[in-house]
């Protein structure tokens, strides 16, 4: 595809700025990239806008300190970062902004299937049918895939070699988890009356 006049190359190293201003500019770039992106931005991508060898981790730490008294915060998701509003402001956001249309927009049953995939992954549609006692439609799986909450994993080693499904980094971000270790453990699930979600051992 032909593009218009080429954008001037981003000056990453900012060699002509004094050190403190250079750092300031890098911080702003990281913040603006995170601000502009709806999904978490990986370390590699962030490293593209700052000088060679500049530590993304140190910049993120400084950014987090800068944001200490702001109503949003920089959050780590797997090996990537995103800006996230602080939970205390949730009521204000809900009262005024129309976030309903941006939310995941999943039915309760979709969410239950997503939870089962998270706890049992990798799991195929047959595995899900065994848990829920009914066929899980391709449409439902499609809705979860469309939102990038799940993706295909390895095939199951049996007739027809059906695909399994696993959760993604977006899934972790959407539910405020850093890794699958943050999923509730067996005891928490049992206490919540959700023991049917427990992996069969």
């Amino acid at each position, binding site marked *: 595809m032909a593009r218009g006049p080429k954008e001037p190359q981003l000056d990453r190293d900012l060699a002509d700025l004094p050190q403190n201003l250079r750092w300031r500019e890098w911080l702003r770039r990281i913040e603006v990239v995170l601000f502009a992106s709806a999904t978490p931005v990986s370390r590699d991508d962030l490293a593209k806008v700052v000088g060679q060898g500049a530590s993304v*981790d140190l910049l993120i730490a400084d950014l987090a300190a800068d944001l200490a008294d702001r109503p949003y915060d920089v959050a780590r998701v797997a090996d990537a970062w995103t800006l996230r509003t602080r939970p205390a402001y949730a009521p204000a956001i809900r009262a005024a902004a129309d976030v309903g249309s941006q939310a995941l927009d999943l039915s309760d049953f979709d969410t239950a299937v997503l939870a089962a995939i998270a706890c049992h992954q990798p799991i195929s549609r047959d595995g899900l049918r065994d848990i829920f006692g009914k066929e899980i439609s391709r449409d439902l799986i499609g809705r979860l895939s469309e939102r990038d909450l799940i993706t295909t994993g390895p095939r199951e*080693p049996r007739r027809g070699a059906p695909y399994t499904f696993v959760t993604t980094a977006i899934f972790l971000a959407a539910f405020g988890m850093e890794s*699958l*270790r943050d999923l509730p453990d067996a005891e928490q699930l049992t206490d919540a009356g959700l023991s049917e979600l427990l992996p069969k051992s």
Partner: protein
Amino acid sequence: MTKRPVVPSDPAVFIPQLPRWIMTATAETLEAAAFRSGAALAHLHLVTGNSTVPQALWRARLALSAAESCVRIMGRREGVVALRDAVHLIRPGDSPGPAGEILRQWFRAVSRSVQAAPLARVLEGLSVEKIAACFDGAVGNPVDRAVSVLESMLVEMPRAETAALILTDAALAKALGWDPLVPLLSLGLKPRDLRLRGDDLHLASHRAVTTASGQAVTLAADLTRLATRLRAVVPQLRAKGAGKAVDLFLSHDALAPGALTGLMSDRAARRLCDRLVDLDVVRELTGRDSFRQYGV
């Protein structure tokens, strides 16, 4: 019908186990733990240089265990069977999934040279310079050097435990002059150990090296015995390419018969696998009727 091969009583086949005093620990100081881990590593050093040990197969099996513990650390529940399925039964264009990817990374890590450039291709997200700096920057005894790599990685990239552990075992191997690396700290460290820092992490690591060395020596002894038997049956195998197929078994954790089709027809590959199972030199690993996998 089953002819058992005569087991040669070659003394070189015998791999001595670690002395018991190394493996028995009570509440101990860092110095005592370091003494034991040093003794265990010196013993293991002889195994890494022993040509009767099927080195590639040994490292691949250790890599499988290392991958299993990395998967557990990530909060996933795939066991050895699921990990093998994901990697060995993969079809072109399919994804091995997040857990299979970890096993694949480990298999690559133990089959490449312990140099910054080849490891950078295994450890996505880490530059050659970064890996070289990890190898050169650390000081002290080999275990301490590996632990300082682990500690800095855990602080810098707290959610990239697999990369951290591969690099840690690579730093250990580098300091000991082993090539390719042998997974040890990644086998011996428990998930909760990764939250320790400073002297506590050092103590846990010395212990981990000692326990893992014990396991690695036992595994080396078992595999050497099995490999000697497998090599001994090669003259009895008439299939074309059988010798090369045996070499593959001696360097891979597990093989689906399909992996042998470069050497022989699909049917011949299945028959050879069945024959090796009949001779009791190779096992079927899955217990399934289809999608089978074989290994020493």
